[in-house]
Protein backbone atom coordinates (compact mmCIF):
# COMPACT_ATOMS: atom_id res chain seq x y z
CA UNK A 1 0.00 0.00 0.00
CA UNK A 2 2.71 2.46 1.05
CA UNK A 3 4.88 1.72 -1.96
CA UNK A 4 1.94 2.18 -4.28
CA UNK A 5 1.14 5.55 -2.69
CA UNK A 6 4.76 6.63 -2.78
CA UNK A 7 5.13 5.68 -6.44
CA UNK A 8 1.95 7.50 -7.38
CA UNK A 9 3.00 10.53 -5.32
CA UNK A 10 6.47 10.77 -6.74
CA UNK A 11 5.36 10.36 -10.34
CA UNK A 12 2.31 12.58 -9.94
CA UNK A 13 1.12 14.64 -12.81
CA UNK A 14 -1.28 17.31 -11.74
CA UNK A 15 -4.55 17.77 -13.66
CA UNK A 16 -3.28 21.33 -13.90
CA UNK A 17 -0.09 22.60 -15.42
CA UNK A 18 1.64 25.08 -13.18
CA UNK A 19 4.29 27.12 -14.89
CA UNK A 20 6.69 29.65 -13.47
CA UNK A 21 8.75 32.22 -15.30
CA UNK A 22 12.04 32.36 -13.36
CA UNK A 23 12.84 35.92 -14.52
CA UNK A 24 9.42 37.22 -13.47
CA UNK A 25 9.63 35.44 -10.13
CA UNK A 26 13.02 36.97 -9.46
CA UNK A 27 11.79 40.48 -10.26
CA UNK A 28 8.74 39.97 -8.12
CA UNK A 29 10.58 38.65 -5.06
CA UNK A 30 12.98 41.59 -5.26
CA UNK A 31 10.10 44.06 -5.52
CA UNK A 32 8.35 42.30 -2.69
CA UNK A 33 11.47 42.34 -0.53
CA UNK A 34 11.79 46.11 -0.99
CA UNK A 35 8.11 46.53 -0.11
CA UNK A 36 8.56 44.37 2.97
CA UNK A 37 11.55 46.38 4.19
CA UNK A 38 9.62 49.63 3.58
CA UNK A 39 6.60 48.27 5.44
CA UNK A 40 8.67 47.32 8.51
CA UNK A 41 10.39 50.73 8.46
CA UNK A 42 7.05 52.56 8.19
CA UNK A 43 5.51 50.49 10.99
CA UNK A 44 8.42 51.22 13.33
CA UNK A 45 8.34 54.88 12.38
CA UNK A 46 4.58 55.10 12.86
CA UNK A 47 4.59 53.46 16.29
CA UNK A 48 7.40 55.55 17.68
CA UNK A 49 6.86 58.57 15.43
CA UNK A 50 3.39 59.52 16.67
CA UNK A 51 4.74 60.08 20.18
CA UNK A 52 7.86 61.90 18.90
CA UNK A 53 5.88 64.16 16.53
CA UNK A 54 3.46 65.14 19.29
CA UNK A 55 6.27 66.62 21.42
CA UNK A 56 7.09 69.63 19.15
CA UNK A 57 3.34 70.11 18.53
CA UNK A 58 2.84 70.29 22.30
CA UNK A 59 5.65 72.81 22.71
CA UNK A 60 4.35 74.90 19.79
CA UNK A 61 0.83 75.08 21.25
CA UNK A 62 2.15 75.80 24.75
CA UNK A 63 4.47 78.60 23.64
CA UNK A 64 1.93 80.14 21.24
CA UNK A 65 -0.73 80.40 23.94
CA UNK A 66 1.73 81.11 26.79
CA UNK A 67 0.44 78.14 28.76
CA UNK A 68 1.81 77.33 32.25
CA UNK A 69 4.36 74.62 33.12
CA UNK A 70 1.59 72.07 33.75
CA UNK A 71 0.81 72.02 30.02
CA UNK A 72 4.17 70.31 29.42
CA UNK A 73 3.60 67.53 31.97
CA UNK A 74 2.56 65.23 29.13
CA UNK A 75 5.97 65.53 27.40
CA UNK A 76 7.77 63.07 29.74
CA UNK A 77 4.94 60.59 29.14
CA UNK A 78 5.36 60.91 25.35
CA UNK A 79 9.13 60.45 25.68
CA UNK A 80 8.60 57.41 27.89
CA UNK A 81 6.19 55.82 25.38
CA UNK A 82 8.47 56.50 22.38
CA UNK A 83 11.46 55.08 24.28
CA UNK A 84 9.55 52.06 25.53
CA UNK A 85 8.29 51.17 22.04
CA UNK A 86 11.68 51.67 20.45
CA UNK A 87 13.52 49.52 22.99
CA UNK A 88 10.83 46.86 22.84
CA UNK A 89 11.04 46.74 19.03
CA UNK A 90 14.85 46.48 19.11
CA UNK A 91 14.78 43.76 21.77
CA UNK A 92 12.19 41.69 19.91
CA UNK A 93 13.81 41.91 16.46
CA UNK A 94 16.31 39.03 16.92
CA UNK A 95 13.56 36.71 18.14
CA UNK A 96 11.47 36.85 14.98
CA UNK A 97 11.07 33.60 13.01
CA UNK A 98 13.39 33.40 10.02
CA UNK A 99 12.97 31.47 6.78
CA UNK A 100 14.98 28.28 7.10
CA UNK A 101 14.22 27.71 10.79
CA UNK A 102 13.00 24.24 11.62
CA UNK A 103 9.24 23.95 11.93
CA UNK A 104 9.48 23.62 15.68
CA UNK A 105 11.83 26.58 16.06
CA UNK A 106 9.58 28.70 13.83
CA UNK A 107 6.47 27.82 15.85
CA UNK A 108 8.27 28.49 19.15
CA UNK A 109 9.43 31.90 17.96
CA UNK A 110 5.97 32.79 16.63
CA UNK A 111 4.44 31.71 19.92
CA UNK A 112 6.90 33.83 21.88
CA UNK A 113 6.04 36.80 19.65
CA UNK A 114 2.31 36.37 20.13
CA UNK A 115 2.74 35.98 23.89
CA UNK A 116 4.79 39.15 24.00
CA UNK A 117 2.08 41.00 22.05
CA UNK A 118 -0.52 39.73 24.50
CA UNK A 119 1.64 40.91 27.41
CA UNK A 120 2.01 44.35 25.80
CA UNK A 121 -1.72 44.79 25.21
CA UNK A 122 -2.75 43.38 28.58
CA UNK A 123 -0.42 45.90 30.24
CA UNK A 124 -1.24 48.79 27.93
CA UNK A 125 -2.79 50.60 30.88
CA UNK A 126 0.54 50.80 32.71
CA UNK A 127 3.01 51.64 29.97
CA UNK A 128 0.79 53.73 27.67
CA UNK A 129 -2.62 54.85 28.91
CA UNK A 130 -1.89 55.79 32.51
CA UNK A 131 1.28 57.88 31.87
CA UNK A 132 -0.51 59.81 29.10
CA UNK A 133 -3.69 60.23 31.12
CA UNK A 134 -1.76 61.44 34.16
CA UNK A 135 0.24 63.88 32.00
CA UNK A 136 -2.91 65.16 30.29
CA UNK A 137 -4.76 65.77 33.57
CA UNK A 138 -2.02 67.83 35.22
CA UNK A 139 -2.88 70.96 33.21
CA UNK A 140 -6.66 71.02 33.89
CA UNK A 141 -5.93 70.19 37.55
CA UNK A 142 -3.48 73.09 37.76
CA UNK A 143 -6.03 75.40 36.11
CA UNK A 144 -8.72 74.28 38.54
CA UNK A 145 -6.39 75.03 41.42
CA UNK A 146 -5.66 78.51 40.02
CA UNK A 147 -9.39 79.26 39.61
CA UNK A 148 -10.43 77.64 42.87
CA UNK A 149 -12.09 80.89 43.93
CA UNK A 150 -14.81 80.20 41.35
CA UNK A 151 -15.87 77.33 43.58
CA UNK A 152 -17.95 74.45 42.30
CA UNK A 153 -17.93 75.65 38.70
CA UNK A 154 -14.21 75.08 38.14
CA UNK A 155 -14.34 71.79 40.03
CA UNK A 156 -17.24 70.59 37.87
CA UNK A 157 -15.30 71.60 34.77
CA UNK A 158 -12.32 69.52 35.92
CA UNK A 159 -14.57 66.57 36.76
CA UNK A 160 -16.11 66.78 33.28
CA UNK A 161 -12.70 66.81 31.57
CA UNK A 162 -11.47 63.93 33.73
CA UNK A 163 -14.59 61.89 33.01
CA UNK A 164 -14.28 62.46 29.25
CA UNK A 165 -10.62 61.43 29.25
CA UNK A 166 -11.39 58.34 31.31
CA UNK A 167 -14.16 57.39 28.87
CA UNK A 168 -11.87 57.79 25.84
CA UNK A 169 -8.96 55.97 27.46
CA UNK A 170 -11.30 53.29 28.78
CA UNK A 171 -12.51 52.70 25.23
CA UNK A 172 -8.90 52.42 23.97
CA UNK A 173 -8.19 49.93 26.77
CA UNK A 174 -11.27 47.91 25.84
CA UNK A 175 -10.21 47.88 22.15
CA UNK A 176 -6.80 46.48 23.13
CA UNK A 177 -8.32 43.75 25.31
CA UNK A 178 -10.77 42.93 22.51
CA UNK A 179 -7.84 42.45 20.12
CA UNK A 180 -6.23 40.11 22.65
CA UNK A 181 -9.40 38.03 22.97
CA UNK A 182 -10.40 37.93 19.31
CA UNK A 183 -7.06 37.81 17.51
CA UNK A 184 -4.11 37.00 19.72
CA UNK A 185 -5.55 34.38 22.07
CA UNK A 186 -6.90 32.19 19.22
CA UNK A 187 -3.53 32.48 17.46
CA UNK A 188 -1.72 31.54 20.65
CA UNK A 189 -3.97 28.50 21.11
CA UNK A 190 -3.37 27.45 17.52
CA UNK A 191 0.39 27.76 17.91
CA UNK A 192 0.31 25.91 21.23
CA UNK A 193 -1.66 23.11 19.60
CA UNK A 194 0.87 22.91 16.75
CA UNK A 195 3.76 22.86 19.18
CA UNK A 196 1.94 20.32 21.31
CA UNK A 197 1.44 18.05 18.32
CA UNK A 198 5.19 18.22 17.64
CA UNK A 199 6.01 17.44 21.26
CA UNK A 200 3.31 15.00 22.13
CA UNK A 201 5.41 11.86 22.23
CA UNK A 202 6.94 13.25 25.43
CA UNK A 203 9.91 15.02 23.92
CA UNK A 204 11.16 18.24 25.50
CA UNK A 205 12.33 21.25 23.51
CA UNK A 206 15.78 20.99 21.99
CA UNK A 207 16.18 24.79 21.65
Amino acid at each position, binding site marked *: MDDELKNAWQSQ*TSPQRLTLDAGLVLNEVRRNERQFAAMIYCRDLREVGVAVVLIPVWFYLGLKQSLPWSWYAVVPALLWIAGFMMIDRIRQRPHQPKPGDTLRCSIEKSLAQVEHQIWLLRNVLWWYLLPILAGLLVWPAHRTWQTRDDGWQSLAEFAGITFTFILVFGFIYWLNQYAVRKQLEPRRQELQALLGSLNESGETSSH
Partner: protein
Amino acid sequence: MIVQPAADGSREALFKRWLEQHSGLVFKVARTFAPSDADRADLVQEILLQLWRSLPRFEGKAKESTWIYRVALNTALAWHRSEKKHRTAQSPLLAIEELPESDDLAAREREELVANLYAAIRLLPKVDAALVLLYLDDLSYREMADVLGISETNVGVKLNRARKELAELMKEVPHGR
Protein backbone atom coordinates in the same frame (compact mmCIF):
# COMPACT_ATOMS: atom_id res chain seq x y z
CA MET B 1 27.76 19.41 -1.99
CA ILE B 2 28.88 22.34 0.16
CA VAL B 3 27.47 25.67 -0.95
CA GLN B 4 28.87 28.93 0.36
CA PRO B 5 26.41 31.47 1.79
CA ALA B 6 24.79 33.06 -1.22
CA ALA B 7 26.38 36.33 -2.32
CA ASP B 8 24.57 38.71 -4.68
CA GLY B 9 25.33 36.98 -7.99
CA SER B 10 25.22 33.45 -6.69
CA ARG B 11 22.00 34.19 -4.81
CA GLU B 12 20.22 34.85 -8.08
CA ALA B 13 21.77 31.82 -9.79
CA LEU B 14 20.96 29.54 -6.88
CA PHE B 15 17.39 30.78 -6.72
CA LYS B 16 16.87 30.15 -10.42
CA ARG B 17 18.30 26.66 -10.10
CA TRP B 18 16.02 25.93 -7.15
CA LEU B 19 13.06 27.08 -9.22
CA GLU B 20 14.05 24.74 -12.01
CA GLN B 21 14.83 21.74 -9.85
CA HIS B 22 12.52 22.00 -6.87
CA SER B 23 9.40 23.88 -7.96
CA GLY B 24 7.52 20.54 -7.92
CA LEU B 25 8.13 20.35 -4.18
CA VAL B 26 6.73 23.86 -3.71
CA PHE B 27 3.63 22.99 -5.73
CA LYS B 28 3.05 19.83 -3.67
CA VAL B 29 3.17 21.77 -0.41
CA ALA B 30 0.89 24.47 -1.86
CA ARG B 31 -1.59 21.91 -3.17
CA THR B 32 -1.72 20.27 0.25
CA PHE B 33 -2.26 23.38 2.32
CA ALA B 34 -4.27 25.50 -0.12
CA PRO B 35 -7.14 23.68 -1.79
CA SER B 36 -8.37 26.44 -4.13
CA ASP B 37 -6.51 27.71 -7.21
CA ALA B 38 -6.41 31.33 -5.99
CA ASP B 39 -5.10 30.33 -2.57
CA ARG B 40 -2.58 27.98 -4.14
CA ALA B 41 -1.15 30.69 -6.39
CA ASP B 42 -1.00 33.00 -3.39
CA LEU B 43 0.79 30.41 -1.26
CA VAL B 44 3.27 29.50 -4.01
CA GLN B 45 4.13 33.17 -4.32
CA GLU B 46 4.61 33.51 -0.57
CA ILE B 47 6.80 30.39 -0.41
CA LEU B 48 8.97 31.69 -3.26
CA LEU B 49 9.35 35.01 -1.50
CA GLN B 50 10.39 33.28 1.73
CA LEU B 51 12.80 31.06 -0.22
CA TRP B 52 14.45 34.15 -1.68
CA ARG B 53 14.74 35.67 1.80
CA SER B 54 16.15 32.42 3.16
CA LEU B 55 19.00 32.29 0.64
CA PRO B 56 21.55 34.34 2.63
CA ARG B 57 21.10 31.90 5.53
CA PHE B 58 21.55 28.80 3.40
CA GLU B 59 25.05 27.47 4.04
CA GLY B 60 24.74 24.13 2.31
CA LYS B 61 24.88 22.20 5.57
CA ALA B 62 21.41 20.82 4.91
CA LYS B 63 20.39 19.23 1.62
CA GLU B 64 18.74 21.74 -0.69
CA SER B 65 15.47 19.80 -0.75
CA THR B 66 15.44 19.63 3.07
CA TRP B 67 15.98 23.39 3.29
CA ILE B 68 13.27 24.10 0.73
CA TYR B 69 10.87 21.82 2.56
CA ARG B 70 11.60 23.68 5.80
CA VAL B 71 10.88 27.05 4.24
CA ALA B 72 7.84 25.81 2.32
CA LEU B 73 6.23 24.04 5.28
CA ASN B 74 6.92 26.91 7.68
CA THR B 75 5.37 29.31 5.20
CA ALA B 76 2.40 27.05 4.53
CA LEU B 77 1.63 26.65 8.22
CA ALA B 78 2.06 30.36 8.94
CA TRP B 79 0.02 31.24 5.85
CA HIS B 80 -2.72 28.96 7.03
CA ARG B 81 -2.61 30.53 10.45
CA SER B 82 -2.75 34.13 9.41
CA GLU B 83 -5.07 36.10 7.20
CA LYS B 84 -4.71 35.11 3.59
CA LYS B 85 -3.06 37.94 1.73
CA HIS B 86 -3.70 37.95 -1.97
CA ARG B 87 -0.52 39.58 -3.14
CA THR B 88 -0.78 41.64 -6.23
CA ALA B 89 2.10 40.79 -8.47
CA GLN B 90 2.62 43.15 -11.38
CA SER B 91 2.40 40.14 -13.68
CA PRO B 92 0.99 36.73 -12.76
CA LEU B 93 3.95 34.65 -11.62
CA LEU B 94 2.17 31.38 -11.74
CA ALA B 95 0.15 30.20 -14.69
CA ILE B 96 -2.39 27.52 -13.79
CA GLU B 97 -3.71 25.70 -16.80
CA GLU B 98 -6.23 22.84 -16.78
CA LEU B 99 -4.91 19.86 -18.71
CA PRO B 100 -7.10 17.53 -20.74
CA GLU B 101 -7.69 14.14 -19.13
CA SER B 102 -5.15 11.54 -20.08
CA ASP B 103 -6.25 8.71 -22.41
CA ASP B 104 -3.98 6.33 -20.60
CA LEU B 105 -6.04 4.36 -18.08
CA ALA B 106 -3.09 3.72 -15.76
CA ALA B 107 -2.23 7.43 -15.73
CA ARG B 108 -5.85 8.35 -15.00
CA GLU B 109 -5.98 5.88 -12.12
CA ARG B 110 -2.74 7.26 -10.76
CA GLU B 111 -4.08 10.83 -10.97
CA GLU B 112 -7.18 9.75 -9.13
CA LEU B 113 -5.13 8.06 -6.44
CA VAL B 114 -3.00 11.19 -6.02
CA ALA B 115 -6.11 13.39 -5.85
CA ASN B 116 -7.54 11.14 -3.13
CA LEU B 117 -4.21 11.23 -1.36
CA TYR B 118 -4.23 15.04 -1.28
CA ALA B 119 -7.81 15.04 -0.02
CA ALA B 120 -6.90 12.59 2.76
CA ILE B 121 -3.72 14.48 3.74
CA ARG B 122 -5.75 17.69 4.08
CA LEU B 123 -7.88 15.98 6.71
CA LEU B 124 -4.86 15.15 8.86
CA PRO B 125 -3.65 17.47 11.63
CA LYS B 126 -1.24 19.99 10.12
CA VAL B 127 1.96 18.59 11.59
CA ASP B 128 1.00 15.07 10.52
CA ALA B 129 0.19 16.36 7.04
CA ALA B 130 3.66 17.90 6.84
CA LEU B 131 5.24 14.65 8.00
CA VAL B 132 3.32 12.56 5.47
CA LEU B 133 4.45 14.89 2.66
CA LEU B 134 8.06 14.30 3.63
CA TYR B 135 7.48 10.56 3.94
CA LEU B 136 5.85 10.29 0.51
CA ASP B 137 8.78 12.12 -1.02
CA ASP B 138 11.08 9.52 0.50
CA LEU B 139 13.01 11.71 2.92
CA SER B 140 14.96 9.77 5.55
CA TYR B 141 14.00 9.94 9.23
CA ARG B 142 17.08 12.12 9.77
CA GLU B 143 15.95 14.55 7.08
CA MET B 144 12.38 14.64 8.38
CA ALA B 145 13.71 15.33 11.88
CA ASP B 146 15.84 18.09 10.41
CA VAL B 147 12.87 19.77 8.72
CA LEU B 148 10.58 19.55 11.73
CA GLY B 149 13.14 20.11 14.47
CA ILE B 150 12.25 16.96 16.42
CA SER B 151 14.14 13.72 17.16
CA GLU B 152 14.21 10.76 14.80
CA THR B 153 12.45 8.67 17.45
CA ASN B 154 9.65 11.19 17.59
CA VAL B 155 9.46 11.16 13.79
CA GLY B 156 9.07 7.38 13.89
CA VAL B 157 6.27 7.49 16.46
CA LYS B 158 4.38 10.25 14.71
CA LEU B 159 4.83 8.83 11.26
CA ASN B 160 3.52 5.45 12.32
CA ARG B 161 0.37 7.01 13.68
CA ALA B 162 -0.05 9.38 10.74
CA ARG B 163 0.30 6.56 8.21
CA LYS B 164 -2.38 4.55 9.97
CA GLU B 165 -4.67 7.55 10.06
CA LEU B 166 -3.97 8.26 6.40
CA ALA B 167 -4.81 4.69 5.44
CA GLU B 168 -8.14 5.01 7.25
CA LEU B 169 -8.88 8.33 5.61
CA MET B 170 -8.03 6.99 2.17
CA LYS B 171 -10.91 4.57 2.53
CA GLU B 172 -13.33 7.40 3.26
CA VAL B 173 -12.35 10.47 1.24
CA PRO B 174 -14.33 11.58 -1.77
CA HIS B 175 -12.34 12.53 -4.85
CA GLY B 176 -10.55 15.84 -4.48
CA ARG B 177 -7.73 17.83 -5.95
